[in-house]
């Protein structure tokens, strides 16, 4: 009955407007991920410097600890690796290039890779040579070197190309000279064009490969550059109209002879101003990746733009290959995409990512391995622009997966109204659920059904550097248990750490306003979480307890705590104060989850009343499936794969049984190198001739040891301490379900009020009564309105 009503309404509207049908979509023949380097630890061992077309195949140049050169004979072939150990060696004495000769072999380093380009079928490097001495550097020379791949070896050899005139490209900051890298390189005829990001902003250089002459174009600020028709260049400029969520992208044609510009087209409603453009002269089409899809725009006409295929990266570069394939690459990934839209498959999984979660984008590659027939299109919206509930009301299944913050109003609305697909049918998700911390698992289930998958976790409260505290003679028992005790205790802290030279109470940049606004934000939020936990919704924020705490935060002896007066941004003269760095004992950004910082800081687990449990909230980013999705099963499968792509700190927060500390991958090699250096100096020490030299070396050795300690200390992605501290907090952790009062005010279109009450200059004069009454009034109204 109800369904038919809606149907009839929709039918009438359809008839009136004769809406066109929707286009089918997906994973086309020949799509492939050639390389995807990834790590969940946030540290990349290697990165892709350049990718070139080589006949029907590719050459990929990577740089990690060592250089790697790989050739793919064609787009289906496996990579063939070249030995790059003789990268800079040559047997012949190079003409007019600096080369160091050792035993008849010339070492041409030109080690600063300024840029790569392909020219007349060859692959070239623009290399620079400099000297470094006593904290100063000089660029001595620059040259074009050619990549030679022969007999399984990859080398950079000298070429017939002239010496480039690089004087314009050298940046000089006092004693320190360096060259900015050439990006978006493009060769047209005998001219190499490249965009260069310098201290003057982004510019374009043109280097004549016949003469080596260099020309610089005088341009207004722009965003991206690519080749254009008939030897021209195309540059893009984006404009974000005030308050707009979307940018307008304008494309200009730059006449390379005259340097004149001409507007060719405008793209509206662009999500990302760094849209990377590529021009294919054969078809006179512009290609770019937008909102997770590869687009082709013939003749610079936005009306004719068409989505060709999915594409997981926006790309640093794009290569046009035979048979209508393109290769898109960035520093981590190289993928092949079919550009024939008619070959797209029929199953398209559309993801709307509002959580900025790497887990979602990393899973694409796993999904491609498991379900190659499904095309995954990820659209990012850093601020949510899509009206999810409206889509639900219209029973719109366009987006299959939404990534949302668990405490957002959108998630709450979907949750309260049962608009979340039951994922319990997916065995892998259920198996993952078993491993999830119980407090999180509980938040992900509704009426016994699994309705969301966790992607990231975060949370904060006051944190303390326990190492420093103990060093100052403090004990765990002395730490406060309640917020009242916290303020009592805070008064004693300065005295306690007075004898610690290297420590101070808070971060140096914290001023009084930062301190108060952060604490007020924190306390009101934690109080709200506490009351929600109690199931009490008839409370007022301006109660005796909270008022007392907010008052105490305002009345505290700022000078003793080293909290200085706020520096007025408008004040042009006094805007810059420098401080000597000391490590803080306390932070108001202490993390309740497992992460890098929680090695150093333990949370102060504060309760509101004595005898109560402390309040420690965690906010989650989750993925859910649209109940109207036609690909619900595939969507669930996709979500089941996210578990292994979580960033390591998130994985350690969300899953149980993670007890092994994790060290950064670079640590081993670095330790080895350090050990070698130390050994070497120990050797020097033995050979030392006099006492002075000896003590000098000893001092250096001591310094090395300290460096090593320091390196080890910060070498942990997840440290033993972080894991232990998290375990201690576990009984008190809970998932935050509502926006904090501050966030709620800013969502409720009262953002200037938030500024006035919390952060702005005016907040200095806001009394605790005013603050809490304002929150009460607004939030009470919101609460009384209901959801």
């Amino acid at each position, binding site marked *: 009955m109800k369904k038919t009503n809606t149907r009839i309404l929709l039918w009438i509207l359809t008839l009136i407007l004769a809406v066109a049908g929707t286009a089918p979509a997906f994973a086309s023949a020949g799509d492939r991920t050639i390389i995807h380097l990834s790590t969940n630890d946030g540290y990349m061992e290697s990165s892709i410097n350049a990718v070139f077309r080589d006949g029907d195949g590719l050459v990929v140049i990577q740089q990690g600890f060592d250089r790697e050169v790989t050739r793919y004979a064609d787009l289906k072939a496996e990579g063939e690796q070249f030995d790059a150990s003789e990268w800079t060696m040559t047997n012949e004495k190079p003409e007019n290039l600096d080369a160091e000769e050792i035993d008849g072999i010339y070492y041409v380093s030109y080690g600063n890779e300024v840029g790569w380009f392909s020219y007349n079928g060859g692959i070239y490097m623009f290399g620079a040579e400099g000297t470094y001495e006593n904290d100063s550097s000089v660029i001595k020379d620059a040259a074009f070197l050619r990549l030679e791949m022969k007999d399984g070896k990859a080398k950079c050899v000298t070429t017939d190309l002239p010496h480039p005139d690089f004087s314009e490209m050298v940046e000089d900051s006092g004693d320190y000279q360096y060259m900015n890298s050439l990006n978006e390189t493009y060769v047209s005829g005998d001219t190499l064009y490249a965009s260069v990001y310098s201290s003057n902003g982004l510019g374009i250089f043109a280097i004549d490969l016949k003469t080596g002459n260099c020309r610089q174009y005088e341009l207004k600020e722009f965003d991206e550059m690519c080749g254009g028709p008939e030897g021209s260049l195309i540059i893009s400029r984006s404009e974000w*109209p*005030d*308050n707009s969520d*979307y940018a307008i992208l304008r494309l200009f044609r730059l006449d390379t002879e005259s340097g004149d510009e001409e507007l060719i087209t405008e793209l509206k409603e662009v999500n990302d101003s760094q849209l990377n453009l590529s021009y294919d002269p054969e078809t006179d089409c512009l290609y770019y990746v937008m909102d997770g899809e590869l687009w082709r725009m013939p003749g610079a006409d936005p009306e004719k733009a068409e989505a060709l295929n999915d594409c997981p990266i926006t790309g640093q570069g794009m290569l046009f290959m035979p048979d209508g394939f393109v290769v898109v690459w960035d520093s981590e990934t190289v993928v092949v995409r079919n550009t024939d839209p008619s070959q797209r498959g029929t199953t398209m999984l559309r993801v709307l990512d509002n959580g900025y979660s790497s887990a979602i984008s990393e899973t694409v590659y796993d999904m491609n391995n498991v379900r190659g027939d499904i095309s995954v299109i990820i659209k990012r919206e850093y601020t949510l*622009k899509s009206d999810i509930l409206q889509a639900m009301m219209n029973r719109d299944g366009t987006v299959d997966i939404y990534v949302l913050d668990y405490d957002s109003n959108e998630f709450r609305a979907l949750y309260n109204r049962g608009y979340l697909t039951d994922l319990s049918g997916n065995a892998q998700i259920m198996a993952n659920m078993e491993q999830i911390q119980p407090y999180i698992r509980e938040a992900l289930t509704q009426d016994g059904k699994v309705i969301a998958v966790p992607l990231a976790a975060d949370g904060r409260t006051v944190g303390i550097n326990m190492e420093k505290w103990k060093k100052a003679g403090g004990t765990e028992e002395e730490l406060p248990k309640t917020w009242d005790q916290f303020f009592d205790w805070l008064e004693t802290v300065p005295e306690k750490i007075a004898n610690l030279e290297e420590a101070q109470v808070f971060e140096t940049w914290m001023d009084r306003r930062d301190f108060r606004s952060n604490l007020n934000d924190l306390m009101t939020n934690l109080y709200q979480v506490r009351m929600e936990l109690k199931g009490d919704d008839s409370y007022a924020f301006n109660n005796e307890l909270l008022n007392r705490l907010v008052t105490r935060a305002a009345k505290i002896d700022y000078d003793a705590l080293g909290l200085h007066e706020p520096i007025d941004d408008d004040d042009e003269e006094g805007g810059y104060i420098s401080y000597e760095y000391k490590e803080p004992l306390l932070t108001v950004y202490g993390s309740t989850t497992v992460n890098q910082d929680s090695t150093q800081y333990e949370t102060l687990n504060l309760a509101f009343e004595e005898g109560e449990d402390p309040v420690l909230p965690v906010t989650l980013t989750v993925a859910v499936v649209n109940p109207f999705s036609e690909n619900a099963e595939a969507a669930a499968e996709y979500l089941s794969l996210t578990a292994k792509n979580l960033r390591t700190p998130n994985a350690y927060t969300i899953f149980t049984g993670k007890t092994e500390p994790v060290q950064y991958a670079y640590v081993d090699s670095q330790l080895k190198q350090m050990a070698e250096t130390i050994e070497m100096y120990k050797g020097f020490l033995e050979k030392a001739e006099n006492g002075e030299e000896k003590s000098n070396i000893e001092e250096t050795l001591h310094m090395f040891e300290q460096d090593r300690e320091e390196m080890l200390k910060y070498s942990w992605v997840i440290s033993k301490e972080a894991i232990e501290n998290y375990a201690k907090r576990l009984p008190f952790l809970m998932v935050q379900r509502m926006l904090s009062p501050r966030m709620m005010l800013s969502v409720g279109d009262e953002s200037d009020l938030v500024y006035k009450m919390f952060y702005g200059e005016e907040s200095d004069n806001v009394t605790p009564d005013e603050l809490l009454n304002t929150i009460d009034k607004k939030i009470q109204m919101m609460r009384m309105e209901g959801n």
Partner: protein
Amino acid sequence: MKNKGFRIWLARALLLLLAVIILLPMVQTFLYSFSSMAEIKALMDTRGNKSTDVWMDLRLSPHMISLEQYERILIKDETILHFFTNSVIYAAAILLGQTLIIPSLAFALSKFRFRGREALFFLIVMLMLLPFQVTMVPNVLTLRFLGLLNTPWAVILPMLFAPFYVFLLRQYMVTLPDELLEAASMDGAGPYRSFLRIVLPVCRPVLGAAAALSFAESWNLVEQPLTYLTSRMDLMPLSTIFNQLAKESTGYEFAGAGLYILPALLIYLFFQEDILSGIQLTEMK
């Protein structure tokens, strides 16, 4: 008799005073728009002081005449001009569309006799009485379904059929004597020709009034854009952003306001007689 004359002069003086007070907001806005931005900022910063010892330094006209505000909004910074252009586009598109649709609808409702005519008219009056929010949600969903949400059409299209102007024109057309049209049909003119050649010219005053009033409404749109264009702040008309301009004083809010008032003022001065006679001819029957 002398007494009566005095009373009339007193009444005139009072009315004059009232007229001055009524005009004052516009006048002062214009005067202030010629202040320097620093002066405006300084003045606006003294707002909200609850101390009984302090008065704002609010005078009628600026200390020194300056075109700085106008230079800012017309030359240096395109923001205001951008939103102003949006407003112009909305107002123009709405007015144009209404001209095509509303007079003929009113004509049909007044000069054709068919079953359900009165009921239809009654419904239109009812719709006219309802505030925007009543049809807001279904409208959003319909517009979304039509793919018009977050496009200028979402603001323009519903306005083209605004019941109030149908009502206004219909009330006027009803009073036109049937003889007028009968005479025309004697001469062989069908309803189309009569409508174009006779009815529209005769309705000139009320058309002018309706156009001016409709302009006033579309020039002051607030709820519609805020609801239909949530993710397209760049499409907003100027009316929705004064708040932000004035809350944290930008220094050029008065020039912005002046610029925004100006077209309305010009339209009023131009159509004044039409508006007056148009309104005068309307009554509830």
